[in-house]
């Protein structure tokens, strides 16, 4: 049993399914007998706003939130929100980022364009070179619906082989938590995310 601390940050926009993804990770950890803490934000902050969840495993873990620079993995469900959570990243951090852009309404109001992807990548590289960009929307559509983007990212995460839990435990947790009628779609999304990262042969 692995007992050292492992920290995952999930950063996205309210409604993107960050909470479910965090719960899947927490449930997989419980299945493997690990100590775990998951932090969530509910209520007003969820309404289309920036949301951050954290999942921490390890014997000595007590606080649900993590220290700056201490993320082992940062899952960015949206490029701008990935940058907003970089305080948790350092050179050891693997960043899995969706390329699905959700334009903050401030940009429309100020007639500003969404930041250039090159700039976003450059900002992330200042913290870590271990960046994998995942085409979540495309893969989720292929799986059956854009609502599976969160599961695509979990598949991608499993493929990095960084987690202290087995890929099989993640799949079981998904089966436990996803409504049965959406099961096939989500299993497919997980596989597509997994294959995508394996295929890109990203060295992380």
């Amino acid at each position: 049993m692995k007992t050292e601390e492992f920290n995952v940050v999930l950063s996205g926009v309210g409604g993107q399914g960050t909470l479910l993804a965090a719960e899947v990770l927490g449930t997989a950890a419980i299945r493997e007998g690990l100590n775990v803490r998951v932090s969530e934000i509910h209520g007003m902050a969820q309404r289309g706003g920036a949301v951050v969840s954290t999942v921490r495993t390890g014997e000595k873990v007590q606080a649900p939130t993590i220290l700056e620079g201490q993320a082992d993995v940062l899952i960015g469900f949206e490029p701008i929100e990935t940058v907003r959570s970089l305080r948790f990243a350092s050179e050891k951090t693997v960043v899995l980022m969706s390329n699905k852009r959700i334009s903050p309404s401030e940009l429309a109001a100020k007639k500003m364009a969404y930041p250039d992807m090159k700039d976003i990548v450059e900002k992330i590289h200042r913290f870590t070179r271990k960046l994998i960009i995942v085409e979540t929307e495309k893969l989720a559509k292929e799986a059956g619906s854009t609502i599976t983007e969160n599961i695509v990212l979990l598949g991608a995460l499993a493929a990095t082989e960084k987690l202290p839990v087995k890929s099989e435990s993640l799949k079981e947790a998904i089966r436990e938590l996803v409504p049965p009628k959406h099961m096939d779609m989500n299993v497919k999304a997980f596989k597509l995310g997994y294959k995508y990262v394996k295929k890109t042969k990203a060295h992380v």
Partner: protein
Amino acid sequence: MPNLHVLLEDKPEKRVLLLGNEAIARGALEAGIGVVTTYPGTPASEIADSISEIAADAGLYMEYSVNEIVAVEVAAGAANCGVRALTAMKHVGLNVASDMVMTLAYAGVRGGYVIVTADDPECYSSQNEQDNRFYALLSNLPCLEPSNPQEAKDMTITAIEISENLELPVLLRTTTRVSHTRGPVTYGKLTAPKLKGKFIKDVKRLVMVPANSRPKHEVLLRAMEKAKEISEASMHNEVVRKSRSKELGIISSSSAYNYAAEAADLLGLDASILKLGMTHPLPEKMIGGYLKEHRKIIIVEELEPYLEVQIKAIAKDKAPDIDIYGKMDKRYFPKEGELSTRLVAKGLADITGKRLPIDFKKIEEKYDEACRNLPARPPILCAGCPHRASFYDIRKVVGDKAIFATDIGCYALGIASPLNVGDILICMGASIGTAQGISKATDENTFAIIGDSTFFHAGIPGLINAVYNNHKIVIVVLDNLTTAMTGHQPHPGTGVTGMHGASEKVLIEKVAEGCGVKFVSVVDPFKVREAETTLKEALQHPGPSVVVFRAPCALVAAREKRSKGIRIEAYNITDKCTNCMACIKLLGCPALAVENGKVNIDETLCTACGLCISVCPYKAIGGNS
């Protein structure tokens, strides 16, 4: 957690991942609680919501009460018949319930009764960050503070035991980081809930007229002496980390304890930690002994120096020479906002002279540089939200010439541009009363903006006041047929109960008429022209007027469509679009974005509400077909 029935499994020793609030619900089931009441509020909502999902199968009674004081009244009534009860609320809910709680402390209970108050340091979803441990001091009621989901479950059971032992309600105080943290919880045995009891008439005990209240005050104070003994012996008050040198001791509770434990490890401190789970009354002897064993004491707690004030008083008698560090004399830890391992580590480092092993300042500088000019993403009204339509209608009629007293709910998000509806917001129901004072003092067009659930919760006395004192205000009730912000709980207007049964629908327009309002109208906010006419008439009315904007919450409507297999056909921008940006400038809908200089509709967000069609001067928005 899609299937809350896992909470009903009678499998002692089973280890499950639960949200702190779900763990409290499990604790209620293990304690055999028969009555659960609540008014929803973040971060407390999931306690009673979980119970609502399983109440029928668990064989207990659950209700969404109209507000927190009624929730306490209902539960206290049952508890005085010997039935075990629990009421859950957010911190500010206890302000509403406090009139009942303060004197219920005198009358007491027969069946165990837990009042859960969930505090919200950092105001994640609240209007203030008050520290409700002071209610324990104020009311003379015992208070327990869990630091994680396991303790949240265990202390719910302990609270019931203490309550029955002392015949007093017990406060269980969580914070956002306890209520909304998931962690492993090991189950105990379930206890079958007892639903029926007996009301034993006892006027001296239960009728709080002065002649009875005076002796009952003494009874309460005696019970709290007994509570001190319970606190001294409580397994929830213990030294959880040992030191070698006995030089330094840390005293902490609740979520602050988690940060203190990790920060002490991070700094490699040779410090013991006294973790307090029962924080009212404090175990004075135990603390006195702990103080004497150390040379330096650091108190780590979130928000107010609740422990520090009392521990310093204990030290004055028991260990006058000891140095105590916290947030009173010199502020080593902030009184505002939530703590973190980083903030606690910094405070501990400042006090002990240890070096922080992480250069936070460097990380922060690098981070600020990366985030420079990064667009903010505050929470906003959802695509298709009927409140957006209501606010657009109101703005169309009054332009900038109106003052808006707004209220607690999703519609508070109307303060954002371009709608800018909301000039004063204090607490539940306050919109209607404050609007009256503003109208009296300014003679301007004054609106009270209030949601359906909030109207039932605390709006009606203000409404009657407006009728009685003839205040000229327009009361806009935004009726989206649910308690949206806290997770779509039912309310008196929905015709559904917490037990998923049918009930009489209390109609807001009938309430207003019954209170004597002479101008009452119900409109669909998406019918812009009709809404305009109604609002103009309401503004002309010489006394108080009520306009009910009724349309279902967009999230609920979308969910219902999905479950019926109805596809939502998003609208799109046709080639008639001149890029005048009227839709973007007037509505601020998240489904409308500018891409490559052109307006675009995000098909995954658009709910086809059609408001943008009403706004577009060029009829350039259409269906996909």
